[in-house]
């Protein structure tokens, strides 16, 4: 999808003034944070599992070439096919070629962030193939022509009223006077409408939460069961996924599964965890006749051996989004690309380039909650800081910010001068405040005072007070 990450500030301002969005965003902390906390506390081993999970992924990434070799061999041995794709264009070409060979006209899709990343739906439509999103949240945003605002809850930015209006418009064949005043009725209607699509589909495309080298298996984790109907009913099951989803063994998957649902939704386990290995076997009465894995790189291999390699540990649980004060305030669309929140602020510059996404690593208060809740212990603030350094090195910031930082660095390296300037600044601010505790205007700081007051500093600077309090004065 088109990147608008460079307009984060403008996007965020618009989001803060969007009343419906702000109402919907109240559901984020309410829906996720408390549930995760309870789930974590119910499992005494949770912290120890995080440490092991980190080690599993670090080990896999360090031996990624070898595990990929084994994974590929196992998929082939089970009768499946592996297609390698360096970027989104190659992946789309492969998928459309398979669809054409099968004569596919309708394709059902399980939720896939990688599909969003490469704009698969647009490519399918252009090739005359109808993609049908089957995850309820994805279905809703497909009807609206939007993109997901959250990696596990794509429609979290919408209210029930908005969904009702969308359904009335899209399902015009249903009686106009039908009652849709509860979420349950909307869910039921989507079930009936999509059931026909599942049965009519020629091909099903899912993503993967994990790939297992030991068995050549792809795994999806869902609550609705849509990913299962997507893969067991049509002639072919296509798995669109990326190289960072690999783990060595089934035991390693078990460890990661114990963290994924708890961190994401606060469930012990999601309803459906499905292990898929190859196509239908002799004697099987159901299942796909063809099984294809499209294994995409799209910039990930370039992260190996860099300070951003730990980002490839991410299992896409969304906990960092849910706990981020910036995400909670502006929602996912403001981030301007597929991956929002702290994980997006680290991943997006890696995948689309710092010049397009340089503002995202700045969209953080560095409160550190994201790293605290990350099941894979990814040092998200540290990596955002890396990006900020690179942004500075590459002169991508506005001139005022660059010179301001340079001036500050000059002073910070000269403590006596720093203290003198601080004292002078302190005095000037107190003079300007005319004895009031807060200032509503401040020269050169309109960007601050337009939205909130500036507090008047105390009479003496921190360093001066510190000197007084030290026991040896």
């Amino acid at each position: 999808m088109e990147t608008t990450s460079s307009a984060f500030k403008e996007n965020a301002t618009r989001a803060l003034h969007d009343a419906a969005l702000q109402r919907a965003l109240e559901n984020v902390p309410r829906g996720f944070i408390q549930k995760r906390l309870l789930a974590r506390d119910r499992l005494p081993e949770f912290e120890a599992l995080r440490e092991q999970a980190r080690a599993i992924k670090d080990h896999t990434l360090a031996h990624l070439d070898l595990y990929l070799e084994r994974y590929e061999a196992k998929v082939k041995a089970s009768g499946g096919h592996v297609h390698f794709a360096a970027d989104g264009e190659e992946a789309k070409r492969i998928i459309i070629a398979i669809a054409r060979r099968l004569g596919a006209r309708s394709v059902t899709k399980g939720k896939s962030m990688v599909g969003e990343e490469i704009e698969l739906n647009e490519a399918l439509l252009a090739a005359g193939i109808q993609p049908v999103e089957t995850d309820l949240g994805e279905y809703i945003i497909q009807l609206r022509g939007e993109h997901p605002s959250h990696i596990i809850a794509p429609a979290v930015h919408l209210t029930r009223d908005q969904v009702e209006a969308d359904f009335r418009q899209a399902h015009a064949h249903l009686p106009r006077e039908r009652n849709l005043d509860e979420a349950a009725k909307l869910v039921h209607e989507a079930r009936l409408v999509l059931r026909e699509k599942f049965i009519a589909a020629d091909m099903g495309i899912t993503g993967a939460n994990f790939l297992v080298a030991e068995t050549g298996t792809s795994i999806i984790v869902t609550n609705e069961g849509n990913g299962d109907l997507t893969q067991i009913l049509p002639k072919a099951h296509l798995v669109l996924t990326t190289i960072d989803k690999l783990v060595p063994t089934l035991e390693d998957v078990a460890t990661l599964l114990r963290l994924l649902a708890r961190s994401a939704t606060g469930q012990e386990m999601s309803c459906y965890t499905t292990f898929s290995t190859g196509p239908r076997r002799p004697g099987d009465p159901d299942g796909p006749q063809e099984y294809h894995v499209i294994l995409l790189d799209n910039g990930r291999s370039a992260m190996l051996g860099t300070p951003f390699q730990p980002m490839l540990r991410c299992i896409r649980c969304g906990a960092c989004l849910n706990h981020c004060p910036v995400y909670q305030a502006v929602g996912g669309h403001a981030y301007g690309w597929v991956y929002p929140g702290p994980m997006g602020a680290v991943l997006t510059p890696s995948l689309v380039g710092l010049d397009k996404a340089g503002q995202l690593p700045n969209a953080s208060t560095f409160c550190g909650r994201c790293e605290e809740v990350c099941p894979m212990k990814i040092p998200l603030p540290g990596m955002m800081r890396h990006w900020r350094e690179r942004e500075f090195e590459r002169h991508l910031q506005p001139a005022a910010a660059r010179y301001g930082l340079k001036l500050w660095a000059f002073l910070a390296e000269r403590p006596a001068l720093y203290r003198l300037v601080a004292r002078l600044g302190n005095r000037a601010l107190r003079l300007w405040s005319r004895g009031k505790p807060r200032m509503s205007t401040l020269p050169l700081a309109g960007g601050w005072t337009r939205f909130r007051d500036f507090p008047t500093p105390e009479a003496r600077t921190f360093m001066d007070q510190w000197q007084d309090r030290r026991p040896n004065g």
Partner: protein
Amino acid sequence: MADLDHRAVLFSRIRQGLGVSGEEPARRRVVEERLSQHSRNLVPRRGQLERSARIALFRTMAEGVHATVAEADKPADIPALIADYLRQQNLPSRIRHGNDRLLSELPWRETAPTVERLSGRAEPTDEVSVSRAAAGVAESGTLILLSGPDNPTTLNFLPETHIAVVQGNDIVASYEDVFDRIRGAYGTGQLPRTLNMITGPSRTGDIEQRLELGAHGPKRLHIIIVKSPER
């Protein structure tokens, strides 16, 4: 470019990033050992209980995710329990199941004469399916179902009501226990086409984060635990 070339490019990029050639014997040995040993990581203590406590935990966890549970003393009691359940839920007296031997050999005609049975994979018109779970995991109340003619995967997802039979002896502590059993049955490094872990009936929270059951899969998941025979 052919697929093969894409493959070569990808592997060379990965090896370049990692600073390796791919030929290092030490790296190959580490990977080989990890795959052949498939050692367990930390397994939570929660499910590691003696048989009856393990079954009780499985039941509690499954009910905690909105499954309903009944217990049969012996397999022969299953048909009557299913007939009772269908009546209570006002469901049609027609079920479909696969070729599973335990299910096929039950005294249906003698103990549940009203229940009509169909066999094979699920059809879109089916309202109730019955499958036999290969295992239950006490830790999270999760059922394990394996694809094949005995228990076709469509039975787990198409009908609105899914009834799953699990034997007490098949209720294990952890997912790791399941993997060991499957390695025993299918061979190391082998899985059936589909292995479903099912934890409660289908649900969604996609509209305002409110839990609604029956999104695309079954609205009702009814589990029958067969307590005998004890080993």
